[in-house]
């Protein structure tokens, strides 16, 4: 009996095996699969409704545990992480701002130091220039004074020389006239005549 059933199955299988893998639907439609009906729809079984009651209780307990305990734990970790990251970012941002202002200060200090140094250099150069100028002026003034004095002395000497020249000319003229004519001429006539002669020669 079992042998013949096995052989008949084998015969059918040898015909159908190529199709069998592709046609589960055929077997699903076989009467054997449906004869009992779906256990899910067997509402005479108290276990079918029982699982709904149990399910409600279990779902409620799961909901309460998740919403009161498990999920807030996750949320706390996520929140603390967000805060940690935000704090770290804040610290980093503040440090960066401090560094930036320090760099700015440094630049400012450098700039002002450079300006100060430049001003000092300028002042020193200006002072030196003014001192040199003043020295030159003093020197020029002294030289001018000395030249002036020398010129005055030359002029005085010349005037003195010219003065004594008239006297010599007067006396020489009087002597010459006396020697030539044997008569003496009054001094004022001689002086006048010499004056004329001297003026005519530009003396």
């Amino acid at each position, binding site marked *: 009996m079992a042998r013949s059933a096995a052989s008949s199955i084998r015969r059918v299988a040898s015909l159908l095996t190529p199709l069998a893998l592709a046609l589960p639907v055929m077997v699903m439609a076989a009467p054997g699969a449906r004869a009992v009906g779906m256990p899910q729809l067997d509402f005479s079984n108290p276990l079918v*409704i029982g699982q709904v009651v149990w399910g409600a209780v279990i779902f409620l307990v799961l909901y309460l545990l998740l919403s009161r305990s498990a999920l807030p734990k996750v949320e706390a970790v996520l929140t603390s992480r967000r805060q940690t990251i935000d704090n770290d970012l804040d610290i980093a941002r503040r440090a960066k701002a401090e560094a930036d202002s320090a760099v700015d200060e440094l630049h400012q200090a450098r700039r002002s130091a450079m300006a100060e140094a430049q001003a000092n250099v300028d002042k020193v150069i200006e002072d030196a220039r003014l001192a040199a100028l003043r020295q030159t002026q003093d020197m020029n003034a002294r030289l001018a004074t000395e030249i002036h004095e020398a010129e005055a002395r030359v002029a005085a000497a010349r005037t003195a020389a010219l003065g004594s020249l008239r006297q010599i000319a007067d006396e020489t003229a009087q002597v010459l006239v006396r020697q030539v004519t044997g008569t003496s001429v009054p001094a004022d006539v001689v002086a006048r005549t010499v004056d004329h002669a001297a003026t005519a020669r530009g003396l």
Partner: protein
Amino acid sequence: MAAGSTIDALGQFELHPVLGGLGEALRFSQSPLMMIVASVAVLAFLYVGMRPKAVVPGRLQAAAEICYDFIYNMAVDTIGPEGRAFFPFVFTLFFFILAGNYLGLLPFSFAFTSHVAVTVALALMVFVLSVIVSLKAQGAKFFAHFMPAGAPVALAPLLVPIEILSFLSRPVSLSIRLFANMVAGHVMLEMFAAFTIMLAGLGLIGDALAVGPVVINVALMALELLVGALQAYVFAILTCIYLREAVAH
């Protein structure tokens, strides 16, 4: 179980009392047992994952935080700022269903989401919650939604029943979608597993051919992993959409 010429694809959905007589008296089957296992798994995942409380999370903590962020963003993005209040509910819903779907894929386990009574209960809970929130947030204006804005008044006798019907069909589609997906997946797995056993009874050639359904079952398992996550997501996102309509003015 499925040996022979018939395949018992639906036997896997039968409920049996666990813990002997006590389970029978308390109507405690393997379905609530798996609900408890799923709940404990979700809670353990969060508690154990978040225990380090590290600023730089490890792998398990990162996974727990990703799950939290995923549902939180879904709730807040979809519902709006009010979504924060519903976030724990959506989180519970998503991970209850997801854990149920995935636990059902383990051998000798049971998928409680493959029972229409469970999915209807979940969908009705969402439906009733959204109605309560609607009435609280919008008052009598809630009923104005059954008449689409801008539609001619003459069409009201046609439009209002259609809108009411579409509103009432929400829990139906919500529950049937999850239930049908899970049942179909488990039936498929059972079918191909049965093929393997049947083919293995055919001698040497059968042994060789029996590898085929096993390969297909491996692929189906991958598909079921996708479906399990997808259905949990669909359930959660639809819940969020209904709640958005409830809080919107």
